[in-house]
């Protein structure tokens, strides 16, 4: 009993002190919404993913805070309050990221987290977001495990990008539509970790349904991640009888692979699907191979470079002006997370008549349809927490006049065509022959 009393006394004092601190802090910062944004600032994922993502965030936050964006986002800030983005490094593994998210929420008092590139980080922090009751909008990670295994009943966690499954399904659909008769078997080279393994499995299953007479290799290549040397794998791929190569390589590994394969003429001999190839296409410029299929996991980057929608036109123009290069997919994907945030805060404020609570913001975002860069997108899966967007595929070609890589022969697959129906697990949907797809 005594100990209980002393505990509660101590707690009371603690609460009083904390309250006083919060009041003084609140008075100073009343006009900002603090957003924690993890992205790779160091390490192998920084150049192709982390830095473009950071640039996209800085641009969209500037646009939001100054009210520069076209309608309906032409009001200033999130629900009238200026946005302050705390960008921090996503390197260092899941444990480090759990600690950092806790620091950002409990030490720096951020109002929401918008970001996350790696599927590993998403998997590691999902439970924590729920525990800390912090609105978290995941922007790039693609693992289906987030809402299908780890967090089946999400409340605070949202994701504003299609799953990796959607991307591989649409790749298979593109091949089935455009290359019937040309494809004589599929093989793959993917990094030997969760992302690579999942990507190959999804692609193989989707192909088995759509083109059942095309055989898949029994010996796909799975080199170590960050190995950088692919001599033996390229030899094996050159000799393989299958003529279509699937790869989910990204970042430095992808650049190394492209360099080494180009030197040996592999891109001339095989058909290629690079599911996130677009991330390095602008960086490599003319050195990027032509005539191959590259993905952006939705209407982002290269696929919308010429789209005249007002928000997109603003983003393209301002991004090129600010950074001297076109925006690639991570810039779009992170910026889309911030658009979702702005939509939810503004909508909740309108409904509440004052600055909204986190719960009200969540209610506004759940299942919402909101305007993004190219038309509307919907939080359509996993109880309204997982976005569904269209997905696009095309073939690279160098445009001499523009001096950059562009895409031709583009096909747009609607959301219902590449995502499982609500409530069906991605893996079951793929194994069951993708029933219920609306193309």
């Amino acid at each position: 009993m005594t100990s209980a009393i002393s505990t509660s006394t101590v707690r009371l004092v603690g609460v009083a002190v904390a309250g006083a601190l919060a009041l003084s802090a609140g008075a100073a910062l009343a006009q900002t919404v603090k957003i924690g944004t993890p992205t790779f600032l160091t390490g192998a994922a920084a150049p192709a993913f982390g830095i473009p993502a950071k640039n996209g965030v800085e641009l969209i936050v500037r646009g939001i805070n100054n009210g520069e964006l076209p309608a309906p986002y032409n009001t200033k800030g999130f629900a009238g309050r200026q946005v302050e983005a705390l960008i921090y490094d996503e390197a260092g593994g899941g444990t480090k990221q759990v600690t950092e998210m806790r620091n950002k929420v409990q030490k720096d008092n951020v109002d929401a987290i918008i970001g996350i590139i790696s599927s590993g980080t998403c998997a590691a922090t999902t439970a924590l977001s729920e525990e800390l009751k912090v609105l978290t909008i995941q922007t790039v990670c693609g693992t289906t495990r987030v809402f299908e295994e780890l967090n089946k009943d999400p409340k605070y966690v949202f994701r504003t990008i299609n799953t990796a499954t959607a991307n591989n399904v649409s790749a298979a659909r593109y091949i089935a539509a455009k290359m019937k008769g040309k494809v004589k078997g599929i093989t793959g080279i993917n990094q030997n970790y969760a992302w690579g393994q999942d990507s190959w499995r999804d692609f193989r299953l989707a192909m088995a349904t759509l083109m059942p007479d095309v055989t898949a290799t029994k010996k796909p290549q799975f080199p170590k991640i960050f190995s950088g040397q692919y001599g033996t794998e390229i030899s094996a791929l050159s000799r393989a009888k299958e003529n279509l190569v699937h790869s989910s390589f990204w970042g430095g590994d992808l650049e190394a692979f492209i360099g080494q394969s180009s030197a040996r003429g592999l891109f001339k001999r095989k058909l290629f699907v690079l599911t996130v190839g677009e991330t390095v296409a602008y960086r490599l410029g003319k050195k990027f191979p032509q005539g191959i299929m590259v993905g952006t996991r939705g209407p982002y980057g290269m696929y919308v470079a010429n789209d005249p929608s007002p928000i997109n036109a603003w983003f393209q123009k301002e991004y090129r002006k600010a950074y001297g290069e076109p925006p690639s997919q991570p810039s779009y994907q992170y910026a889309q997370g911030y658009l979702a945030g702005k939509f939810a805060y503004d909508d909740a404020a309108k409904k509440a008549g004052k600055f909204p609570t986190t719960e009200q913001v969540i209610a506004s975002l759940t299942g919402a349809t909101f305007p993004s860069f190219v038309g509307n997108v919907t939080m359509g899966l996993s109880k309204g927490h997982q976005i569904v967007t269209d997905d696009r595929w095309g073939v690279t070609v160098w445009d001499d006049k523009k001096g950059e890589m562009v895409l031709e022969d583009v096909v747009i697959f609607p959301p219902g065509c590449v995502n499982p129906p609500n409530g069906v697990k991605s893996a079951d949907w793929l194994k069951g022959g993708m029933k219920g797809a609306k193309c």
Partner: protein
Amino acid sequence: MNRLFDKTFWGLTIGLVGLLALNFFLEEWMRSIGLQSLSRGCVAIGLLILWRTGLVSFGHALFFGFGAYTVAMMQILGVNDLFVLLICGMATAGFLAFFLGFLLRKYRAIFFALLNMAFSMILYGVLAKAEWLGSTDGFGVKQVSFIGMTPADDMYRPLLFVCAAFFAYISAVGAHWYLKSTLGMMTMAVRENEIRVEYLGYSAEKAIHVKYVLSGLLAGVGGVIMAVTVGHVDPDSMVYWPVSGDFVFITILAGTGNVGATFIGALVYELLRTYAFEFAPHLWQLILGGSLLLIIMFLPDGLWSIRSELRNRRELRQAKRDSDNRAAEVRR
């Protein structure tokens, strides 16, 4: 009795009481840093035990990861009690150390260090490649119960902190007593002259084997605490070689003078990392490396040597004063 309950024992006990008192005031993020320091501190004690024999392991993330993954796997099997999980984590890590010990006790110096690393990288490879082991994404770890009790949400982490503090305390006191025992002291002799130890009738290999198992057990404890604290296990943050590097970093930072110092070293390391990360998001690795360099240059025996350094200076000053006094008396 007095041999067991010495200054270090009382120091550790006061430390424990201090931690338990602090638990009421800590903000949640501080408690989180504290829990991770306790976890890494346990592993660093294991390294300290090896270090006293002149052995450095660049692969103790192997046992750390084994402890952590045991927690995740046991939860999948339905076991969810912290104390059961701790025993299982220690058992798997300890058994692994026991078996590997037969090989590793034959090696010294760089061969020992790198063989350990090789084994940890084998585990890393297996975990990263096997989908049923979670691949690189790893597993989530659910909230645990405490001897069947499930506390209210706001009491969960404070209670976890109390348990972790007790585990760390028992580990530290146990390690300290071991190091003071004949077997423990002998291993310093092994470092100095192995052949002479053999001539005295002891087996140096057996002594090292015992040490190796103990360090494995301690790393297992650290792994269990870390898995439950973070709520997630994955190969990159539990088994990859930089994780082993972190432990060596902490051991160098703390110095091998005293088991208590390892926890101070672990805490300093956590704080260094947290603030370097916050104030220099692009350069935090550089700051960590730079501080290690400074420690090695200016405090080659670690933070603990500050204490003995101060004592030496005081004694020197005292000695000088004494001799001055004597000289003055002679003159008089």
